[in-house]
């Protein structure tokens, strides 16, 4: 488990399963009212974390701090934009 690539893969699998289970639960009425939006925000947050893992570990930006900061800043603003559009719907 010391290998960052293995940790990244496990993290991606667990987070993907988590977001799928959360979405199926929402679709089956496990959450209602404002909690549906909270669930959606959580799903988007999980997607954001997964994108960061791929950028840092798969694409190797963990070894390039300047570019990692740039990519992650743009990604964070983009995900905030998606969250705003989602909550506006």
């Amino acid at each position, binding site marked *: 488990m010391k290998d960052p690539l293995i940790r990244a893969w496990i993290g991606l699998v667990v987070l993907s399963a988590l977001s799928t289970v959360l979405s199926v639960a929402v679709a089956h009425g496990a959450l209602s009212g404002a909690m549906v939006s909270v669930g959606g925000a959580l799903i988007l947050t999980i997607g954001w974390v997964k*994108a960061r893992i791929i950028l840092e570990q798969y694409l190797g930006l963990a070894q390039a701090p300047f570019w990692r900061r740039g990519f992650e800043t743009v990604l964070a603003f983009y995900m905030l934009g998606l969250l705003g559009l989602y909550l506006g719907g």
Partner: protein
Amino acid sequence: MTEQSQSSSAETPSVLDELPGDLMMWVLIISELLVFGAGLGAFLGVRITDPEGFSAAQDHLFRAGAGLNTFVLVTSGFLAALASRAAHLGKVWRTRAMLLAAAMLGVVFLIIKGVEYAGKYAQGIGVETHPFFTFYYLLTGFHAAHVVFGILILGIVGYRCAPRTVEVGVAFWHMVDLVWVLLFPVIYLLR
């Protein structure tokens, strides 16, 4: 310029040197991310006009199947990353085996996607059924086309098998992976 300053500027690493892989591949990756990013933004923008209709349309999608496809693609990306590592260690056959496994999982992804499209076709769901499906077919279809190209690229870099070439090809595959982890929650999961 003095000899000393020439020597100093030659030794000072540029931030571009820090970037892993090839600069042009990153230009391609950023371009692709902008295209898909705009598409996903437009999808959520249009969703504001008809949230109930989008939710009803989304119920026709098989979320667990898309979740399985996510597992397939992130595992494929993991194998591709291992291939790049093996290439840098000079392990040619291990590199090729990992690239082949990554490409095969890409084929599995396309088969699952094909089954999904066939199911929609059987239900009479097309591009014009609802704006949700217009975006669905456009974005997932464009992504699937990238998976096809990615498989071809993995095959080519596996044939040549030079560390730098493998790194660049694998970076394209990770871009396909990255796009999917953003596309998957927005299209399939958000209610």
